[in-house]
């Protein structure tokens, strides 16, 4: 069980591991692209505000699914972090319910970073992990993806955080928690002076639809989720999720929530090419995630949650064992025979031992109709992961990185017991006639436990 802790209570070592995992996601790029795994999360949040198809409008805000959608969203982010460092969990920013020091203590270089103070805008973060310019604590820097910027390339926050009147209070949150009806509880928590106010008072990038550009977004929504979890204790059961069934498609108890909707809807926002490819079977409904503990996490102050330091939470102990990353690449430039299901195969041998914690496979294929193609990764043990299954229609070429985040089969390979060392195979077949292509290159990066 993951234990999500108060961010103000994390040790310096826990902060370092958390922020290093965040920075790692920000700097894990798709081959030949400036798009990172972190950026994909930002793009999803931008895209969900404008949906078409089965759903219309905003699939995640100002409606019943606000809480369920963000629970799933930050849980996926947490799982992505755990692929980098399995000992990391999301901490929560204890605004409103804790002392003011639970807020003020976070905004320092070696935690979530300072408020805005410089750069050309006068609002940019200029030190710590989130500074645009590389520094000793983050030698890679933090630059917002060009298509996801509203302010500038560097992350911006207000120069001061107004925690005066209008800031969330324990009394106010208590009143929200006292609401018996979900339709009153949800907007009370989402609107001012709670969730919305925190976004707006952080200001700048946090006040925009692309607010997850600032990692404090995830700590903020962890607190929102925690308050919902508290409310659910007093109002258990699916019947208390929007019991009247009001709201548009995507917001009701048994609706599919975009983007985990099997392709029922699509975004109208101009970020489509930044979104991860999700399997059609990757479907999430609010009813699936009402019980947060069944999702594998709890909050450090809730009854029955394992206390910190017992070895199965977010790392109350010392430094972690460092996982080892095994890498290989090849440029076979193989012809993919037209309409031959037997296809072609290319192998990469990785030297090392250990169970797979994470896998990244980058593929470069030229082809005039990628809907003809099926791509399968084969582990040294003979397990298979179907990476591409004749989708994409008449689109040309595949230049793509597959990860456990965008491939359910790869995610399965990280669940334990799969050996990372040995010969990995990539099998490609063309299953329709006429259009042809080549496997130009592919690479694999496997993180293994030692």
């Amino acid at each position, binding site marked *: 069980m993951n234990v999500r802790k108060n961010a103000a209570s994390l040790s310096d070592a826990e902060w370092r591991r958390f922020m290093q995992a965040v920075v790692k996601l920000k700097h894990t790029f798709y081959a030949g692209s400036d798009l990172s795994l972190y950026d994909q999360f930002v793009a999803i949040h931008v895209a969900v505000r404008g949906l078409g198809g089965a759903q219309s409008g905003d699939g995640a805000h*100002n409606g019943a699914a606000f809480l369920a959608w963000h629970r799933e969203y930050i849980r996926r982010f947490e799982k992505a972090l755990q692929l980098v460092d399995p000992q990391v969990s999301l901490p929560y920013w204890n605004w409103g319910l804790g002392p003011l020091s639970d807020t003020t203590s976070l905004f320092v270089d070696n935690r979530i970073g300072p408020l805005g103070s410089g750069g050309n805008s006068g609002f940019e973060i200029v030190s710590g992990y989130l500074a645009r310019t590389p520094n000793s604590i983050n030698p890679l820097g933090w630059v917002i993806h060009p298509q996801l910027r509203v302010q500038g390339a560097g992350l911006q926050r207000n120069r001061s955080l107004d925690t005066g009147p209008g800031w969330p209070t324990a009394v106010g949150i208590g009143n929200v928690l006292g609401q018996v009806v979900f339709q009153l509880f949800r907007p009370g928590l989402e609107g001012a002076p709670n969730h919305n106010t925190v976004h707006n008072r952080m200001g700048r990038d946090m*006040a925009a*639809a692309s607010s997850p550009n600032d990692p404090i977004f995830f700590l903020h929504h962890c607190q929102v989720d925690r308050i919902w979890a508290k409310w659910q204790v007093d109002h258990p059961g699916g019947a208390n999720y929007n019991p009247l069934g009001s709201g548009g498609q995507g917001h009701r108890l048994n609706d599919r929530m975009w983007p985990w909707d099997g392709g029922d809807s699509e975004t109208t926002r101009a970020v489509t090419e930044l979104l991860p490819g999700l399997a059609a079977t990757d479907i999430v409904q609010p009813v699936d995630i009402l019980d947060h503990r069944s999702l594998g996490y709890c909050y450090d102050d809730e009854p029955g949650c394992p206390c910190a330091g017992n070895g199965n939470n977010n790392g109350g102990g010392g430094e972690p064992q460092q996982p080892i990353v095994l890498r290989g690449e090849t440029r076979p430039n193989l012809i993919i025979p037209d309409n031959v299901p037997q296809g072609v195969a290319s192998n990469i041998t990785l030297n090392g031992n250990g169970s797979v914690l994470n896998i990244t496979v980058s593929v470069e294929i030229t082809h005039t109709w990628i809907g003809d193609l099926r791509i399968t990764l084969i582990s040294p043990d003979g397990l298979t992961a179907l990476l591409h299954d004749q989708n994409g229609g008449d689109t040309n070429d595949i230049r793509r990185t597959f990860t456990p985040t965008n491939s359910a089969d790869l995610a399965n390979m990280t669940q334990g017991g799969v050996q990372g060392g040995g010969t990995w195979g990539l099998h490609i077949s063309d299953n329709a006639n006429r259009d042809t292509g080549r496997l130009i290159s592919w690479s694999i990066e496997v993180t293994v436990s030692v």
Partner: protein
Amino acid sequence: MARKSKNSKKIEYRNVKIEIISGQTEEAIKIGSKGIESSRDADTGTYVCDELPYQTFGTLEELGKAFVDSEDSD
């Protein structure tokens, strides 16, 4: 069939023209010549828009004025 009526209200705020169009089935707001896409919270009925994603407004007029203020502060 009776024709549905539309009401249009025009105001000027900080030298910017705001037009609010209210029909039986649609509502729209224009700031100057720019149309602003707005929607309503499913439970409270308050107005929201993409440009000010974490704010809600009791009326389209309030939304329009806040939009003008936000443009001015950039």
